């Protein structure tokens, strides 16, 4: 038979040096409180399972906020309810460590319920130890989500009313309903027999964490004699007789045997590999220097969402970049993904561009009646506007001192075989008025834009050529 050695568990400090003040040998908990029992179970388990060297304890806001005073293990005090989120940050960045959250019922089941449920649902490789004593202890005995019906607290002085506050929150039942968690059990700290079960449950959870199996939750029904206004014995009896009736003990879920250990990726910092992934490919680079003159050209493209207005602007920007110009592209960004208004501003210059905002456009491309009405007065003197005759019914009062050219872009696009290429057609048309950017730069931009849509590249290249031709003809006819 194994010899039983009585003594302090190895994971407790001999002296609680982290605790300020004179008292270095005692815990700050009240007589009869469940935290002391659970702390001892944890300290024993950390030693026995050889987890002390690589386990981080995450401490809540509540009576156990000072848990790190006692454990010879790294600890962190975190915002109220957020332990599972902080634990996620720890375990995702250092998956080689074991992470244990220690939370009370206010912290876990009220303010931090979302963090708990979401971490459980992601299957984070952590253990959450949930101390349910049916009250807010540290703040002085207010009602918790787990306060029993009829139980009197500072904020339920007439007893918790089902009508007003609903039934106690059943955390194990909720968490075990999810697919991801590995292990969920509810135990009690009210009798030696229950404590033995609690000890086993805790060790099972820790083992799963150590084996990287995923998320474990153990709920401990625990006494708070001071706030229950009972003796320690009465409190334990109250758990036995009242609490367990509302919170049935037992294993709610245990699928650890079926789960493979998690295998997180290894982060890469090798400079050559980082460059390879992030640095631009040859076709993303601009061609180089352009003459450092005062050239600046402002373009506005406008229509409705789905007409390819923004991507048209991007192609102009890319072509200018390829040519070696400085360029800015700024989209209007709306909550409407499709069908709403869309416009973008493009500024091309041989120097650094101060403002990306186009107040007066040298060139304007208009694809809808709404856009025409909204932007037609934003033309620079001597500027050019090209509009889609198929989508603009009326010009209204023409802006003065500028050239306005209509083009049946949508119709030509349809005849070419695809209404969606109207934007590339317009790009071809507008390129005629932007001779500082070569035809080959525009074609390169189109190729890049459709690099992942090979099927439609040809028709877009044709549309570009058709746009150039149509507009040249229109201009010639007018002259």
């Amino acid at each position, binding site marked *: 038979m194994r010899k039983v050695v009585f003594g302090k568990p190895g994971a407790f400090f001999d002296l609680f040096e982290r605790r300020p003040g004179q008292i270095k040998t005692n815990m700050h908990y009240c007589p009869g409180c469940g935290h002391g029992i659970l702390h001892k179970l944890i300290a024993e388990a950390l030693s026995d399972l050889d987890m*002390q060297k690589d386990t981080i304890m995450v401490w809540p806001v509540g009576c156990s906020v000072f848990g790190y005073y006692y454990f010879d293990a790294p600890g962190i005090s*975190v915002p109220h309810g957020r332990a599972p989120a902080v634990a996620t*940050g720890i375990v995702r960045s250092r998956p080689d*460590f074991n992470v244990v959250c220690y939370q009370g019922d206010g912290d876990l089941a009220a303010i931090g319920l979302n963090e708990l449920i979401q971490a459980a649902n992601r299957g984070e490789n952590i253990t959450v130890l949930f101390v349910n004593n049916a009250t807010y202890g540290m703040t002085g005995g207010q009602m918790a989500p787990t306060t029993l019906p009829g139980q009197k607290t500072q904020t339920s002085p007439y007893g918790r009313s089902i009508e007003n506050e609903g039934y106690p929150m059943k955390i194990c039942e909720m968490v075990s309903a999810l697919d991801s968690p590995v292990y969920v059990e509810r135990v009690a700290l009210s009798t030696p027999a229950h404590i033995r079960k609690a000890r086993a449950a805790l060790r099972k959870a820790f083992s799963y964490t150590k084996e990287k199996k995923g998320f474990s939750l153990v709920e401990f029904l625990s006494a708070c004699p001071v706030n229950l206004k009972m003796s320690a014995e009465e409190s334990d009896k109250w758990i036995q007789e009242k609490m367990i009736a509302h919170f049935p003990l037992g294993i709610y879920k245990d699928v650890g045997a079926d789960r493979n250990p998690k295998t997180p990726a290894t982060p890469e910092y090798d400079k050559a590999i980082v460059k390879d992934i992030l*640095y631009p490919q040859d076709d993303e680079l601009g061609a180089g220097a352009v003459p450092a003159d005062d050239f600046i050209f402002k373009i506005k493209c406008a229509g409705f969402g789905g007409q390819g207005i923004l991507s048209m602007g991007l192609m102009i*920007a890319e072509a200018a970049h390829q040519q070696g110009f400085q360029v800015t592209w700024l*989209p209007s960004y709306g909550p409407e993904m499709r069908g709403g208004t869309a416009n973008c501003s493009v500024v091309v210059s041989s120097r650094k561009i101060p403002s990306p905002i186009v107040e007066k456009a040298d060139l304007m491309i208009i694809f809808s009646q709404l856009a025409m009405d909204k932007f037609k007065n934003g033309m620079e003197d001597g500027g050019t506007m090209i509009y889609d005759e198929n989508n603009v019914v009326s010009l209204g009062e023409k802006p003065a001192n500028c050239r306005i050219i209509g083009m049946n872009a949508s119709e030509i696009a349809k005849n070419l075989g695809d209404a969606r290429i109207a934007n590339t057609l317009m790009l071809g048309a507008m390129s005629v008025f932007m001779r500082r950017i070569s035809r080959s730069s525009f074609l390169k931009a189109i190729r890049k834009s459709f690099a992942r849509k090979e099927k439609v590249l040809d028709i877009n290249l044709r549309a570009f050529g058709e746009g150039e031709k149509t507009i040249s003809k229109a201009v010639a006819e007018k002259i």
Partner: protein
Amino acid sequence: MPEEKEMRILLKGNDAVIYGALLASCDCFFGYPITPASEIAHSAALLFPKLGRVFLQAESEIAAINMVFGAAAAGRIAMTASSGLGISLKQECVSYMATSEMPGVIVDVMRGGPGLGNIGPEQGDYNQVVKGGGHGNYKCIVLAPDSPQEMCDFTYLAFDLAEKYRTPVYVLSDGVIGQMLESVKLPPPREKRQSPEWSLTGPGRANYVTSIFLDHDDLESVNIKLQRKYSEIAANEQSCESFMTDGAEIVLVAYGISARIAKNAVSNLRRDGVKAGLLRPTTLFPFPVREISLAAEKASHLVSVELSNGQMIDDIRLAISCRRPVHLCSRMGGNMPSETEIESFCRKILRGGAA
């Protein structure tokens, strides 16, 4: 590999953030969707896993920053990105991070407010980001980019500052700078960051992280230590771009998109013989007090051009101890002043009109 001088690519400001972060050897990104900052998370989702680094979409703004806190405590450096109302939600944890001296990077792409506001560009987060924002006596370093290039560079720099001063660092941007596309020259990849000695994964088991100090003297000591750090930051890290300020009679002060519009206005005014100049703070905490104070020696008027209700203007007045009149040229709600608006505002002031 092409020559360095050619290494420019077109990037959106929001995408450039992630290039800066990865090249700075950021370990983890924890995000939550919000317009107009979402592309930062999109880019992170695409690129972090390619380098085996951690990308996780959190369940909330609050969870995202708490994950950043956790990673920092574990000796890794992480970031998150959001906008306005999302930043408000993060403030409690930022206060914890500042107090327990945990590094991290937060990008705020400001949108219209208050309330749910809209998704247009605004600069109404100035106070909540530059002045601490959460509870208690803390501040964060705040960098203010005005281009995709600076979105990349300042994010890159933010990690070094966060690590150096053990503090959260903000990159404070706006909808326009986040959404706009411009060419960017990428910085060189940085070495892998070593896990610091103070981290929870540090040597032995001695380290712990906390921000609760029940003893008043203990907490006061923590506060004093923090204030010393902020003084050191204020002495070392002020940064400001000066544009046409030589002999300027009227000096505009603006950051982010406001500064880019103001540059056009200043150029136009100079062309017409009006002696205008622009100071563009690129750090908001620390505020570039030295340069602004110097400019006020010569200028007769200062103008705060901001997309907010007069938030930065307070810092300008403090910087110059109210020695000169400081006027507010502002738009709100997602609107921006046109360059002509700014020009006429300045002309009116110089004619002796009220601001």
